[in-house]
């Protein structure tokens, strides 16, 4: 029986490809995450999404422009209530 020899450069190519793919097969590979079904998708929407943005940012009509608030306060004769946080209070609540 005649055995066909594999050219050495092909062997090296296969080994190199294997080495490149190694990280995918190691600890960094996809772990426990299960593919999402439509049912799970709907359940997550139900649990996570608020009914209205008011649920998150409240009913106070917050502006986000201090200078504009300053002009409005001057025009209406009112003081300013400024909620200043590291991380925007209306975007990281």
């Amino acid at each position, binding site marked *: 029986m005649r055995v066909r020899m594999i050219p050495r450069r092909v062997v090296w190519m296969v080994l190199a490809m294997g080495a490149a793919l190694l*990280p995918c097969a*190691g*600890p*960094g*590979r*996809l772990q*426990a*995450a*299960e*593919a*999402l*079904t*439509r049912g*799970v*998708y709907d*359940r*997550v*929407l139900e*649990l*996570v*999404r*608020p009914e209205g*943005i008011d*649920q*998150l*940012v*409240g*009913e*106070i009509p*917050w*502006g*986000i*422009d*201090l*200078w504009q*608030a*300053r*002009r*409005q*306060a*001057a*025009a*209406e*004769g*009112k*003081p*300013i*209530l*400024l*909620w*200043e*946080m*590291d*991380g*925007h*209070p*209306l*975007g*990281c*609540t």
Partner: protein
Amino acid sequence: MAGRALAFADPEIIRMASHDFIPVAGDDWYQRRRQDAEGEFFRSVADQGPRKGAGGATRQGIYCLTASGKLLAYKNAGQNPQVMREVLRDALVAWNRLPSDERRPGAVEIPPLERADDRYTRTLAEGGLVVNVYTRALERNEDRTLETCSTRGTGYEGFATALDHLWLTEADGRSLLPDSPREGQAYPLAPRIAERILRFHLVDNTRGEPPFWRADDIRSSRLTVEIEAVTPEQVRLRLEGQALLATDADPARAERGYDASLLGWITFDRKRQIDAFDIVALGEHWGEGPYTRGARPGRTPLAIVMQLTAGDSPADRVPPAAMRNPQEYLSPSR
């Protein structure tokens, strides 16, 4: 974060804030840095209180002030409604003690802001889209069905829904759809959008400002778009995939990680404009950051929902938290 908003759910505080004051909210990270008239105004007010920002430190808190820049009252954060009510009442007493010609409408004239410091202002370019990103810690029942978490008796925090925004530029939107879409056609999600979602939006921000993922923390990812339907009225895309994000190449040794699956749909109208963007991510998250202490131990379910917003309320215009570094947020790293 939800705790900070607690006081502003109090009916008396809502009434005072809405009717007796001009309410405005801001991100101190930008305000304390910006070198323009608005930044100078803010710092001049903060300097009248205890938060003088020495060495560039935070000046966060609740400020009551006049349009001319006089500080009436200050309190750091606002978790206790009783304390917050007293702060607002004290501020109104101080306001009413001012001479009437300082308080009457039009007594102070404030010109338009002539120049904003572009380094510390963020605006989504025309044609861009704002996507609400809601994040919530969940738990599993014995049958593995999902539930919201109960805060009682656990000693852990952050079980309310958190909010951030994902920005998509006009070019991002175009990159999602091929020129001649065909049903069944499948392709990888554009790398810059995939990286933006993975690094800056698959994060646990339920207890405060989260650490974002480094590009190297994306240990593996596969986000595939498939064209599900093409009609004269719309093109519907299905996005699905998985991602493993971890601070160590070996997830077992990583101090922080998120092992998640994604599923969702994006639709384009007849003008090839995105009119729906609904993506869900669900997976196990573990670990915490310097400003997100109090995480549940071990790997626990964390869900993220992304949905297009109308973009017409002030809250919609708040930039993504990661836009403090716009180059990294908007541009691909690989």
